[in-house]
């Protein structure tokens, strides 16, 4: 019996992670060399403004916290460009989690941006309604996102409409629905609990990052501790053989879209909370494309099959780091899409077998 070398073959996901992480490292290196102050992280609480290195080595922060233990949970803030990347990238990371599962089944969900707008509008409206407890506000926003996902899942799973088309419908109509809910207004709110969702801190990190961490953990548990992960990968890789093995492919696809809707709901809450208002026109605009890009960069093939949650998160971080780098270099955010485009093309080419074969042939022809 050959020695069990399964750990070696398991590193398939590690090898997929290499690309986005390597790109991320390159980007960080670039910033370390050329962007002063990029890596500075500051700890702030109450009146203190202490660089992280100092906070870890001296007792300034620790002694303050010992005196005011109540501040530890939500009143310690970490600040810095790195933290910003995590914070701003949270929305795309959340979307990417749901998008990963959808793409793994061989589909795509173009409606997540619109669903974000809907969730934000629902939350903003309900928070102003008298007598609605806060948990209900959140539940309503998430509930409607789940319903949106179920709508997509029904179109794709039951009516067998092509995913691009099916989710396109909600992408177009969804913003209209959001505006309907918001009565065409941009609804501002000041309720501090809702504001906390996007702007608060938990144990030093911005709250959206905490949401991402929990969502990532939950997704990993959902897919790896139940049979859902296996079924999703199987359906995306070879749907016919999977059906012949007794898996209900329709239900599996349905669940993926529902989950994507839920993720969009969370992202929508964060987005609305970030700017303290629900803007149905602009919330989540084109974030679905960033999410798809993150998933593809992270190693999940657009045609479906094996998915890599960590890879998608890394991909989202890469995109956000790219955006932030450009911002720090005083490049107009409007021009940021250009390098994004080049990254997409580069990643696609690298993943394309045809390209790799042609490139290898080209290299091979060079004289030794």
């Amino acid at each position, binding site marked *: 019996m050959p020695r069990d070398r399964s750990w070696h073959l398991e590193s398939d996901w590690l090898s997929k992670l290499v690309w986005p992480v390597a790109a991320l490292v390159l980007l960080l290196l670039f910033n370390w060399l050329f962007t002063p102050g990029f890596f500075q992280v500051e700890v702030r609480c109450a009146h203190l403004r202490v660089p992280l290195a100092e906070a870890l080595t001296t007792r300034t922060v620790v002694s303050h916290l010992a005196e005011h233990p109540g501040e530890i949970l939500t009143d310690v803030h970490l600040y810095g460009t790195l933290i910003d990347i995590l914070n701003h990238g949270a929305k795309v990371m959340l979307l990417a989690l749901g998008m990963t599962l959808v793409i793994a089944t061989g589909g795509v969900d173009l409606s997540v941006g619109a669903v974000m707008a809907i969730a934000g509008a629902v939350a903003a409206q309900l928070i102003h309604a008298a007598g609605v407890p806060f948990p209900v506000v959140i539940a309503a926003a998430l509930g409607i996102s789940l319903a949106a996902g179920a709508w997509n899942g029904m179109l794709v799973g039951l009516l067998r409409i092509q995913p691009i088309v099916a989710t396109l419908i909600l992408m177009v109509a969804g913003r209209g629905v*959001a505006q309907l809910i918001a009565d065409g207004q941009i609804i501002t709110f000041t309720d501090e609990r809702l504001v906390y969702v996007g702007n608060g801190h938990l144990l030093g990190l911005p709250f959206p990052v905490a949401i991402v961490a929990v969502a990532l953990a939950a997704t990993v548990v959902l897919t790896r501790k139940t049979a859902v992960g296996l079924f999703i990968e199987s359906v995306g890789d070879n749907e016919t053989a999977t059906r012949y093995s007794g898996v209900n492919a329709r239900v599996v696809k349905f669940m993926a879209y529902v989950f994507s809707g839920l993720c969009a709901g969370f992202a929508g809450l964060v987005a609305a909370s970030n700017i303290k208002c629900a803007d149905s026109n602009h919330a989540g605009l084109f974030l679905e494309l960033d999410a798809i890009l993150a998933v593809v960069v992270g190693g999940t093939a657009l045609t479906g099959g094996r998915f890599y949650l960590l890879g998608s998160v890394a991909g989202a971080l890469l995109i956000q780091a790219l955006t932030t780098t450009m911002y720090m270099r005083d490049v107009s955010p409007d021009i940021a899409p250009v390098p994004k*485009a080049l990254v997409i093309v580069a990643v696609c080419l690298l993943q394309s077998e045809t390209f790799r074969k042609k490139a290898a042939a080209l290299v091979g022809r060079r004289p030794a």
Partner: protein
Amino acid sequence: MRRRIPAKYIPLAATALVLVALYTAGCLSYPNFASPRVAVDLLGDNAFLGVAAIGATFVILSGGIDLSVGSVVAFTSILIASLVGEHGVHPLPAIAIALAVGAALGSAMGCLIHFYRLPPFLVTLAGMFFARGMGFVVREQSLGIKHAFYVEDIIQNLAIPVSRQVSIPFTAVCFVVVFVAGLYVAHYTRFGRTVYAIGGDEQSARLMGLPIGRTKILIYTCAGLFSALAGVVRTFYMQSGDPASCVGLELDAIAAVVIGGTLLSGRVGFVAGTGMGVLILGLIQTIINFQGNLNTWWTKIVVGLLVLVFILLQNVVAAASGRSGKGG
């Protein structure tokens, strides 16, 4: 001989029905709806969308998709505005340059899609990002076009007077011309028929000896050209260029194509349908404007539902005709 509408024309007939129904409903509901001004505005206001949608029709017919439409329109508009306003180039060569750039971008996308078998979705997504960003590289803010050619020729001299108050704007003329050209290419050229064949069954088309590669690259080149042309028409319409404009235009174009009876998977479709689809979108907006108290977001909802209805209709028709043909 009994006359029956062949199954494949049913979606087109449905589109025409919707168009007529909408227009009639509008005429019945609002006093000034049936005036020539409304009709002329309908054509003129939606001209640039119409041009873009016709280009998109060819891409979708072949089974592909083009997400870069809106960005290319915005890019070419600011390119022209900048060339004319900041670099003193006469509008005509500026327009020629813009068209060339659009075609080049489309060609690049087509090559990536064909030679490396990259998915059209991702390649045109990259194209969209690229064009959008490049628009801002050209100029960060919008810029009006004050050249005499635009101010005088386009608005006054080239408009066709219909009555004392109303004249057909040049943009509408462009729309009609491009529409007719699109119809011609789709039905009277080998290129157009090859596009239909590729969308129908690429494998079979290859076995039948059709020039797949050349045609595919040409399709995306044309799409880029049409998007650029739409950008030109938009400069006629707005008398300015704006890199931030036309966000989401590709979705409107796709909606117009689908409502016009073209399947998003390709192979079945009508340029005529797209033309009608554009008019339907315009009519919806016009009706909502006339209504006054309805807000424009209803447009989005109605459009979304219309797309759904047409897709379901197409599925039903496809299932029905599929059962009578291949089987067993």
